[in-house]
């Protein structure tokens, strides 16, 4: 989106011709006429369409039974059978999707028709409740388009969710006569119950040529990886029964089997397990002697005991999901809803949405041959992992199984990700439950690197008008061997920086950047002049740091390039009386922040500070002219999840003659203001990201009984 809008902006001004004042009125009049013309055009072009469409579709209330009837001649064409070799690059017309700045595919839905054969017998139920829900969800989503010419994916309104509810040949004929069928290219069919007796194929038997199939119950032999989408078999119980999420932890049963009509061979294996392990295994079956009126699907029985289904699933840690005649089972959805960890026993089954979902985190897959070992296999799963799997199972249900809408949108998103892979949703977004997304940290600088020393660092001095002190800082910092460039950010708009000749002569390039406004955030702007990864932010009054201390600070930063590495350390504390955070600058045994008056950090954090600072923090800091350093500490700790590194012992950092200023900073109002900042930032971040540590970094031989002249950094901590 960014790229597209930028292009339009650059074109704008060039079109307006320069004009003389006396012609201005004339041009303005002309321009107004054109503008009016444009508006009129707009009205003319688009108004009638919208009236027409609304009268056609949304205003009029219609029944499913009123849809037009289409008669299929017996000899109307039948599509080819599905082509097993189809892949996105062979059977899919990607040109239809085009490049679009939103990276969203457009999906068109054919209008609903009722298909009958020559004798007027209907081909199938016009539409099922679930398929109607699915199409409604697509229609309400941002994928939808009503313009068949702009569509990338076509979804027929012919309902093929259940193969047993339709006539195969006639349905195929109905598909073939769709207006844009074109051998099924870019058509998407949804099917949950494929196959039928006697062989129960694992994919929809309706000939469908090149159409994509979102199918429930694929096997590895019918699933065209990267082309088809494996979807769940929807369980209508999801909508009927409200099972509140149950906290993780041990449950009454260890293994539970709730399926009816299991093959006797499976059942006898399960019963053997029960015989071996007793009470912790519960094998349920259909109830035989239920009184009338009780729906059989909502009860399960073990001997004479009757259990409510699906509630009973919440009583078990693991729930068995065995294959039936088909591979995909609706019980999987019920099990996930109950937060029970599914034990999937269905060789060659392609799990729902397996292209994006990491099922190892939510389920245990056991080969059919290993059924007798199920109990010991499950016992080897660590307890803490079971708890996570329970949470994960529930999350999968909530996000991808819960409704036809969830299933439809996940399917379209998967196809979308294939077409716009560079904008695809990440593994974490698909798989992490909200709680994990919230508590986990993904460090943007995750690669463990120790940047080469040769690169050096860029020192950035933010200054306003303390020229004398500034020059002293420049002179001191220029003595540091690894300094590669010095950048002075001149934040005073009323005064020009001193002339070139007046600046100290130093061995590295010195650049002065003038700012447009006196803002603290100017210190953290990712200037193009910064060519090194390491940045040393230093105030124009920090003159007491020795060259050894600064060089050592840089070496420490190299070992921790994703952290703030600085000299003056600070701490945040929880004030139990006031019930809020408090800022602490006393001599403490802990640190959680370093001041950016003298700190090394990665240039990338400048980018984050300037463009990705959450909430209004950046403006708030500029308005209050304070706490930019605390904001930086929050930002870095929040994205990396790591603590700061304080280097070298505590000392006075400012010049001895400026103690008055030092005294000022200890001023009570200053402390109150800083505490306010912490509280404000913590509320914007929604958490307290700062990490408290008890250590600081010193040179290996610091204060050791060893000749000073042999130490790399002898001049540390000395005033």
């Amino acid at each position, binding site marked *: 989106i960014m790229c597209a809008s930028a292009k339009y902006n650059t074109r704008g001004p060039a079109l307006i011709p320069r004009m003389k004042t006396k012609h201005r009125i004339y041009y303005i009049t002309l321009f107004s006429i054109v503008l009016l013309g444009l508006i009129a055009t707009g009205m003319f072009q688009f108004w009638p369409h919208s009236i027409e469409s609304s009268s056609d579709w949304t205003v009029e209330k219609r029944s499913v039974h009123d849809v037009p009837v289409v008669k299929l001649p017996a000899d109307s064409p039948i599509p080819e059978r599905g082509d097993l070799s189809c892949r996105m690059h062979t059977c899919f017309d990607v040109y239809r999707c085009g490049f679009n700045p939103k990276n969203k595919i457009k999906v068109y839905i054919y209008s609903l028709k009722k298909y009958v054969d020559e004798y007027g017998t209907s081909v199938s139920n016009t539409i099922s409740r679930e398929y109607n829900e699915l199409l409604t969800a697509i229609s309400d989503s941002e994928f939808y388009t009503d313009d068949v010419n702009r569509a990338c994916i076509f979804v027929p309104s012919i309902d093929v969710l259940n193969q047993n509810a339709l006539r195969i040949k006639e349905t195929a004929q109905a598909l073939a006569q769709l207006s844009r069928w074109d051998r099924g290219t870019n058509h998407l069919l949804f099917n949950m119950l494929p196959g039928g007796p006697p062989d129960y194929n694992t994919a929809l038997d309706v000939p469908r040529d090149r159409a994509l199939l979102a199918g429930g119950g694929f096997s590895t*032999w019918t699933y065209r990886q990267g082309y088809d989408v494996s979807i769940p078999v929807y369980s209508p119980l999801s909508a009927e029964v409200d099972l509140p999420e149950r906290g993780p932890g041990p449950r009454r049963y260890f293994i539970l089997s709730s399926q009816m009509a299991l093959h006797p061979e499976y059942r006898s294996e399960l019963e053997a397990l029960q015989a071996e392990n007793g009470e912790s295994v519960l094998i349920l079956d259909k109830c035989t002697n239920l009184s009338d009126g009780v729906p059989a699907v909502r009860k399960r029985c073990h001997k004479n005991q009757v259990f409510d289904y699906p509630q009973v699933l919440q009583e078990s840690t693991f729930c068995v999901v065995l294959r039936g005649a088909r591979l995909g089972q609706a019980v999987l959805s019920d099990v996930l809803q109950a937060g029970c960890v599914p034990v999937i026993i269905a060789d060659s089954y392609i799990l729902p949405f397996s292209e994006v979902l990491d099922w190892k985190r939510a389920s245990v897959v056991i080969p059919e041959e290993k059924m007798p070992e199920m109990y010991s296999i499950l016992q080897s799963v*660590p307890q803490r992992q079971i708890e996570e799997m329970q949470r994960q199972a529930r999350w999968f249900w909530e996000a991808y199984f819960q409704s036809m809408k969830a299933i439809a949108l996940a399917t379209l998103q998967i196809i979308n990700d294939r077409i716009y892979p560079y904008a695809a949703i990440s593994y974490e977004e698909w798989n992490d439950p909200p709680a*994990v997304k919230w508590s986990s940290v993904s460090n943007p600088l995750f690669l463990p690197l120790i940047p080469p020393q040769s690169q050096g660092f860029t020192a950035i001095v933010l200054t306003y008008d303390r020229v004398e002190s500034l020059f002293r800082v420049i002179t001191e910092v220029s003595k540091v061997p690894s300094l590669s460039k010095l950048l002075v950010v001149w934040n005073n708009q009323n005064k020009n920086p001193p002339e070139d000749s007046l600046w100290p002569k130093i061995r590295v390039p010195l650049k002065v950047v003038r700012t447009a406004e006196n803002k603290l955030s100017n210190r953290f702007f990712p200037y193009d002049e910064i060519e090194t990864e390491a940045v040393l932010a230093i105030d124009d009054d920090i003159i007491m740091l020795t060259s050894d201390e600064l060089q050592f600070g840089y070496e420490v930063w190299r070992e921790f390039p994703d952290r703030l590495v600085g000299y003056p350390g600070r701490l945040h504390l929880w004030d139990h009386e006031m019930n809020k955070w408090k800022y602490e600058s006393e001599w403490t*045994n802990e640190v959680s922040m370093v001041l950016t008056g003298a700190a090394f950090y990665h240039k990338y954090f400048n980018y984050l500070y300037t463009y990705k600072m959450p909430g209004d923090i950046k403006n708030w800091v500029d308005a209050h002219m304070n706490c930019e350093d605390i904001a930086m500490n929050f930002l870095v700790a929040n994205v990396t999840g790591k603590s700061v590194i304080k280097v070298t012992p*505590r000392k006075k950092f400012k010049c001895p003659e400026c103690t008055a200023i030092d005294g000022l900073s200890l001023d009570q109002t200053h402390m109150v203001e800083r505490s306010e900042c912490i509280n404000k930032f913590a509320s914007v971040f929604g958490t307290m990201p700062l990490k408290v540590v008890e250590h600081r970094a010193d*040179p*290996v031989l610091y204060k050791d009984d060893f000749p000073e002249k042999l130490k790399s950094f002898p001049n540390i901590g000395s005033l």
Partner: protein
Amino acid sequence: MQTRKKYIFLTFLASWLLLFFFGGDQLRRFAFFSGRKAEARRNWPRWTDRSLLKSFADPEELQSDGDPSLPSPRARRAAWLSVYKNSRCRMETCFDFSRCEKHGFKVFTYPRERDQPLSESYSKILTSIERSRYYTPNPEEACLFILSIDTLDRDHLSGQYVRNVDEKIRGFPLWNGGRNHLIFNLYSGTWPNYTEDLGFDIGQAILAKASFYTEHFRPGFDISIPLFSKDHPQRGGERGWLYQDSIHLQKKYLLVFKGKRYLTGIGSSTRNALHHIHNGKDIVSLTTCKHGKDWEKHKDTRCDKDNVDYEKFDYQELLHNSTFCIVPRGRRLGSFRFLEALQAACIPVLLSDGWELPFAEAIDWGKAAVVGNERLLLQIPSAVRCIHPERVLAFQQQTQVLWDAYFSSVDKIVHTTLEIIKDRLLPHRSRSRFLWNTLPGGLLALPGFSTHLGDFPFYYLQHGSSPSEKFTALIRAVSPSGSLSQPILRLIQAVSASQYCAQILVLWSCEKPPPPSGKWPQTTVPLTIIQGRRKLSDRFFPYAAIQTDAVLSLDEHTSLSTSEVDFAFVVWRSFPERIVGFPTQSHFWDAEQRRWGYTSKWTNELSIVLTAAAFYHRYYHSLFTEYLPAGLRELVDGLAACEDILMNVLVAAVTKLPPIKVTQRKQHKETVPQQVKGTAGAADGRRFSQRQDCLNQLADWFGYMPLVSSQLRLDPVLFKDQVSVLRKKYPRLEKP
């Protein structure tokens, strides 16, 4: 002049008007007019009777999906065996799992025949397997078999093409139709159409092949491997280039390609189009027609100009300075370019439709590469321009993660192949996709240790958890007298007094039996004695008794105070993936002797923390014992003092980071300054040279020197600061 301008302007406006009145229908499709009201969309109707619609399936039908007339599951599985063979192989039909049950995952390589020449690459593959912890020389024990016939190059025009493979294979008594065999291949087919035919019947063998086409790929069975050159290192391997250049958000070029353009034949259409996106500025796409003997016969009008431009840029220079690299198909789907770009942290933009990406069963390529579409080449520039900087940065780093974890050496490629197969054998004990795609990578995360993320030292941040708050002290006792020495008694007292100590384990490695329980000091924490086997590697055995994340490894002569232990443990909790300890040593490259040197003298750097007093994660015990091949542990057991170097090398190889030294009240025995030779005595001299040898042997085994140096020590915040002792949390650390 003025009037002319006016007229031009008027005409311009008039044409605009005309355009709008008559061309409105076309304009309507432009994005900037799409802001029509949502209500006006022709949405899917809200049927009046939608709540009365029937469900797609009867609830009972959904819940009891059985058919008594179906054959029994056992019969079905038996029938599969005969149906799903050869090109339709899957693990459950073509692989004999029972072979792997008794002895675990063992790999047998056929004995090499003398008259059978092996290509360099194939002998590297065989060496990798024979060096690995899975190797067995006994076919009876084997779960997986590797042929000694070189099958890498199956282009029958090639000099390395082996003839009559079919005949030879049928002569092997172990072949068994290819069951449980793994066949490696880099090149298949030949000019002109490069079909993926290997020229012999692989039967039911698993095929690990480069340039796999998805249609021929048997999912969950075959493995796609990367194409690598014969110069690819056996082990170790070069680091990725992001290390040298560090992270650059902006590079000189956005997108580059420099390579051959095929004038005819398969793959030519993609490469012929590449010049279209060249803009000479940030996108450089250069092709040359010069290749093969008779290129001039086919040359077209562009060739001469292209060839001139081609020479203007250097491939390496482009690779180093570009953010994205186009990796188009060649004659075959994969190319060397793929690994080259990956190593260079130049994000691969793949234009190779239908290529089953290397190790895609485990690797999430969406995090490290842009999988483009050959047909949409012209959209690539705008697409990559629109990728956000954060994502680019993540892509760049992930290329390095993957390169270093799975591709930088033949060893890694082969091991990744084996681990993927091993994961299939025990699905419930296999790595999740997260483990494969997160540092330090799947090869170093053993699912046999745990499948729970929180049990590993690497994932605390991503997992949102933290290491346990207690540690287990493991003291190795070797005193020959068989009685308890004063130092060990003092040590037990000091350690057990730590508020973080959960238990003390004493690893009794003496010939004489341990003293009876009454002789041991009374401690507040449980004290357990483990009988060791008197091997040095014993101290890193994953004892079941160790239940805490942290292990404090100690020697009986170590002298530590409670505050030292407390402070070190608090530091370790901040760095749970590293070794955190007290006495340190360092390594250096001895340019004169052209070998690694080692010093225990006081230096300004450190790279080894002695395990005589160090905290580390208990996972490293498992890694030490299970990941390292037995040969390496035997090497360590044979030398007097090398096991701690191996542990340091191992952890450094995993983390790529140095260990951490913390404040120590007084110097540990070993770090007392000592002369290299002479004064310290012959025993110390021998010990020293053994350690140096050990270091060099380890560097050789790993293929590089994993140790990383550090220049810092972590002290308490107020350590030796001019402030009252009463305010300090660890005042005892400062006592002389």
